[in-house]
């Protein structure tokens, strides 16, 4: 009798078997699908990448920038803005643009590096424009002294002498530069996003831009020798600090000094 029951056992399924089958099925089908559709970009501007970019563009950008990037009510023409513009705008989260207001803000980045490259390749294919900069200009091995001089002449009036940011008219602003990657810094200079002027390579040569990036990296990597920087916005912060903390602390001392001891 027991032998009969035993021989029946191999036919009985384990309770977790169903789950395992489903799991394996999902893995196999999903993985197979991913493998079939994964576009490995070996070269920037390859037709596959441009097509990938075009699809992303149509889904995310065309409603404002037109189906062929020619511009529409919500956004200007992207013809000729180059890969650098896309890499900057989308790479810093400014694009896709949201909300109305005097200026776009940095937001969390919505696309992966590959997707951004694809969109950049597509826009670059529309017409020649500024390209994504070469690695050699982004290493920060330029001359920070020359970079500082150029920064003060061309950039400090909007971004502040150490890139702390500054005001423009009507609610616009030049953002602070802390945390901005060398690549995005270069791209901003060469494309002139929003109201920032364009610093083409005749105005600031690639070497000049490398030096400016080196200067900014030096400022960011080195703490001030004087101590805490109070935001690097100058005498206003220093004055506020004096009144609130300097005088405040000293007045606390005077109250203690004048009070009768127990």
């Amino acid at each position: 009798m027991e032998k009969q029951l035993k021989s029946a056992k191999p036919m009985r399924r384990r309770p977790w078997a169903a789950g395992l089958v489903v799991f394996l099925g999902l893995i196999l089908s999903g993985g197979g699908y991913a493998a079939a559709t994964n576009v490995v970009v070996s070269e920037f501007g390859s037709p596959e990448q441009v097509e990938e970019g075009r699809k992303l563009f149509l889904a995310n950008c065309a409603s404002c920038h037109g189906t062929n990037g020619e511009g529409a009510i919500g956004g200007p023409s992207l013809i000729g803005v180059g890969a650098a513009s896309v890499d900057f705008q989308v790479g810093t989260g400014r694009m896709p643009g949201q909300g109305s207001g005097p200026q776009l803000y940095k937001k969390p980045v919505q696309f992966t590096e590959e997707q951004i490259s694809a969109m950049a390749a597509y826009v670059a294919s529309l017409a020649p424009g500024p390209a994504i900069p070469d690695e050699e200009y982004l290493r920060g091995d330029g001359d920070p002294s020359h970079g500082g001089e150029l920064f003060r002449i061309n950039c400090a009036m909007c971004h502040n002498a150490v890139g702390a940011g500054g005001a423009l008219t009507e609610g616009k602003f030049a953002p602070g530069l802390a945390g901005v990657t060398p690549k995005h810094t270069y791209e901003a200079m060469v494309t002139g996003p929003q109201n920032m002027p364009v610093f083409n390579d005749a105005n600031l040569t690639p070497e000049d831009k490398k030096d400016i990036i080196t200067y900014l990296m030096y400022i960011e990597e080195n703490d001030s020798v004087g101590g805490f920087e109070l935001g690097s916005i100058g005498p206003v912060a220093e004055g506020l600090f004096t009144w609130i903390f300097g005088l405040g602390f000293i007045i606390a001392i005077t109250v203690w000094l004048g009070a009768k001891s127990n």
Partner: protein
Amino acid sequence: MTNTTENKPAASDAKPGFVGGAANYLDERLSVAGVLKGFGRKVFPDHWSFMLGEVALYSFVILVLSGTFLTFFYQPSMAHVYYDGSYAPLKGAHMSIAYASSLDISFDIRGGLLMRQVHHWAALLFVAAAGLHMLRVFFTGAFRKPRELNWVVGFLLFVMGMAAGFTGYSLPDDLLSGNGLRIIDGMIKGIPLIGPAVSSGFFGGEFPGTEVVARLYSLHIMIVPALIIVLIGVHLMMVVIHKHTHYSGPGRTDDNVVGYPLAPVYVAKAGGFFFLVFGVIAAISATFTINPIWNYGPYDPSPVSAGTQPDWYIGWLDGALRLAPSGWDISVFGYVIPMGVMVPLVVSLVFLALVAAYPFIENWVTKDKREHHVLDRPRNNPTRTAIGAAGVTFYGVLWAGASTDLIATNFQMSLNQVLVAMQILLIIGPVIAYWVTKRACLSLQRKDREMVLHGRETGRIVRLPHGEFIEVHEPVDEYELWKLVDYKNYEPILARPDANGKISLGNRLRSAVSRLYFEDRIAPVSKAEYELAHADHAPEPVAAKPKKKAIKA
């Protein structure tokens, strides 16, 4: 001649100790014993608000000490060099020797950066403490007779402090302070008739020239400090002659000064306070960056940094320039008066003149010729306090006006809207501040009056046998009571015709201003009122101070 050995006092037979010997030596030449006798037990009243002037004084001493260190290393020359110090982002940069020496102090001289930061933080604190001290003096009426002249001396000290600060921070010849000098040059050039000539005289020719930093240096280390030291001397001498004022309170009258003797209490407290102020400044200077000239770069007329503001005490002048209305030049027979410059200049000067003249204005209104040594509580002179609040608001809006661009970026607002809002606030702000402050003072006076007549509300509710609920009031003790009733009562004056039956304009004006000052008033409680209020219960206030603990429980 008598035999001097017989007249020698017995004490000098024994050999004197070092201190005794030194004291004897000095007294035989300088009469120091008399000084010690006169000053040693001089009484000073004890209140924290009386120490603000000391903060300014000690900050000044610290400025002189740290400044002396800096003079050994700083070079006020505008000749140009290529930087060869240890700060990498400026290596090889073309700059003035003044800037290069300031960089050397910051990076290549041990203790240099610390002394620079001590010097600059102390400068900010000096003017801030002086300003707060002035406000204390104003709101307590300490400028009344006999101290009107001391108010003027103090006012001059405040202005000298601003001058010392401005000349000082322009010495490193960096981009930020250099643009400040450019602005000053622009303002000078705009002055009618003499503007361009004065500009040329100040800068030794065209801006920026090669002279101005050395001239500012001479002003900063010699002329202005000399004036400040003389003015401080006069200021303190008057405090000695007049003795310090004191707040009203039991035992404090216009005839005496109540407090502690100079030696040993004030020697310890005020002397110790110097070290405390120095210590706070040192601690801040060790840990917080101030005026990072290496970030701004050397002065050049072409670059400029966003967020270009002067040090805080010049801020109100910069704000005045920003808030001036647009596009406003006046042409007089083909000569140009730039109103965008002249209006801020004139408004600032008028404001300063009013501040300096205030004690004399009050004198003219009240014609109170008595000496005043007991201070007013601000609430007991509502109009003066309200005028002060309006003045502070006016100054404060101008001050805030200097940072419109920073307000715009930090609070994500439009620069233009911030500016227009401040222009409006400049006009209506003081009016609102005046009205609100005056009403607040009068209300506080009413509250005090209630306390005198009916005592302090204890929060204990009692139900009387016939059903009425009352809150138990506790009468204030006599010490507290004295403080609440001891203030001056002024009444407005009617304009009266003189012998010829005419009322002069001066009289009319004085009558109107006196009404502004004193028409709305809460007079101190009189004896008759007090007795009436207390007629139905315990006639005298509690003689001894009730135990505070019972109330707080």
